[in-house]
């Protein structure tokens, strides 16, 4: 499979028919694994790293899950393609910065992705839309079991899977859900939630993981620790917390509609207005407005079919994706122009958001 085929279609996990997909965008689980007694990628010298890649890549490609896949060494990928993979949440920013000696194998549906020689020899992850942590874990656990037949993983009975960084040792597992919480942000409840979740030993991060901004009201909630707790228990705990977050967000939406309907209709209406009429727009503004439109769909102010358009735009408005459509590198200003054009096109057939019912209209005055 060629990179073009992979990058020109929307990701499989941008689907809206999954459980709790209104508020949970995606569920993902990643496992970190290393080869025994082979220097970790960050410490290995070039030939060691290359040898490790040459050993692991064919094994990963041979997985039944990877029957139809994209696989390459990172030095063969253009900078723009790598950035697109980051924007699609398939590889980390750190991995995108790597070249010869590191690789990537992604299945055609973009639901399983294996980074080779990132911080650890193998970082494998599975992704699904909506809240499906258990099923995602099952998928990646199977991949791990298949790989372990062929590769000699570094494992200690006392410390578990040995990783480059002490924060990952043990299960090597990071399970996370990407949640969309516009109402909690609008009603200033988000800090309380973040603090409560932190107290439970879970981490809350921005759209692109560690150290990134919470653009578009998206937050990544994940487990913090990897040692001393079984994988299934971690998943169960995270799942419970996410279900609670969903409930809080839903309550916040109801309360907003009840107490401040004008604010809700105004925010959704403005987002639609700007996005459908703008002629130049930054990616940050786009993401934040798309987020409010998405909430508009959830609250039935916009037709349900709009959701897929909005969800695809979350990825398509990002810098590398915009440049790919233009088929050349663009300046920041040109990008903002192309982005606005793309959004206008996609929203062309989306009708205006509905107005408050007549009965409520008097209250609004």
């Amino acid at each position: 499979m060629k990179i073009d085929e992979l990058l020109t279609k929307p990701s499989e996990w941008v689907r809206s028919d999954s459980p709790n997909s209104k508020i949970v965008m995606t569920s993902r689980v990643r496992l970190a694994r290393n080869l025994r007694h082979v220097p970790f990628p960050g410490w290995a010298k070039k030939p060691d790293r290359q040898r490790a890649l040459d050993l692991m890549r064919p094994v990963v490609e041979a997985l039944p899950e990877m029957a139809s896949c994209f696989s390459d060494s990172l030095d063969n990928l253009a900078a723009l393609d790598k950035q697109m993979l980051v924007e699609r949440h398939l590889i980390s920013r750190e991995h995108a910065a790597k070249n010869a000696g590191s690789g990537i194998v992604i299945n055609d549906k973009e639901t399983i992705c294996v980074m080779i020689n990132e911080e650890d020899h193998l970082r494998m992850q599975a992704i699904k839309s909506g809240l499906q942590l258990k099923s995602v874990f099952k998928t990646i656990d199977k991949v791990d079991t298949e790989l372990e037949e062929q590769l000699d993983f570094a494992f200690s009975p006392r410390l578990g899977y040995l990783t480059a960084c002490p924060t990952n040792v043990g299960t090597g597992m990071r399970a996370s859900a990407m949640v969309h919480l516009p109402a909690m942000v609008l009603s200033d409840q988000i800090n309380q939630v973040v603090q409560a979740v932190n107290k439970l030993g879970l981490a809350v991060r921005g759209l692109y993981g560690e150290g990134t901004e919470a653009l578009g009201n998206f937050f990544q909630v994940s487990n913090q620790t990897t040692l001393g707790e079984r994988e299934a228990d971690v998943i169960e705990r995270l799942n419970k917390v996410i279900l609670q977050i969903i409930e809080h967000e839903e309550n916040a939406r109801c309360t907003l509609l009840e107490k401040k309907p004008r604010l809700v209709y105004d925010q959704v209406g403005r987002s639609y207005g700007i996005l459908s009429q703008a002629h130049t727009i930054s990616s940050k503004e786009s993401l934040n407005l798309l987020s409010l439109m998405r909430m508009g769909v959830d609250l039935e102010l916009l037709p349900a079919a709009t959701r897929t358009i909005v969800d695809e735009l979350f990825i398509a408005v990002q810098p590398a994706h915009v440049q790919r459509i233009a088929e050349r590198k663009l300046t920041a200003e040109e990008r903002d122009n192309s982005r606005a054009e793309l959004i206008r096109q996609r929203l062309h057939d989306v009708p205006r958001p509905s107005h408050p019912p007549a009965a409520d209209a008097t209250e609004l005055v």
Partner: protein
Amino acid sequence: MTCDICKKNEATVHLTQIIDSKMLKIDLCEACSKSKGLQEANGFSLADLQVGLGAAEEITGNAGAKCSVCGFTQADFKKTGRLGCSACWETFEQGLSGLLKAMHKSDRHVGKVPSKAAHTLVITERIKQLAGDLEQAIQSEKYENAAQLRDQIRELESQLKVTPVKST
């Protein structure tokens, strides 16, 4: 009080986070707290921050130790917050244990065990048993028996051996 990150400026941001009833504390200056994104509303994790600063300093008792497989030293960990290879976990085991306890729920893995490792565990256990038998055999001067046991142990040990990839 100076900043834990730059070690230069006066710390004005003091953070405390409780994870599983363990308290993590960190003191930062204005500039470092900004650069680490701590002033944004999207939350943060002290455990992440501690790797690379407090973490590195907590590796103690292994001064001068050098990994026999990859040549990694304690000073290298201080720089990167990452280890050199899987064998480093043994080399620096003592110094890492405090750090692991502060970072995780416990210092003992209770999750998945790869089937190969499960096999190894069985063999290691069997060797321990045979070694005990061997000692008894020698004490009771059953030398023929002892020779057999010794051969069995050698056989099992050879099954455990793996050839490490040499560092170039």
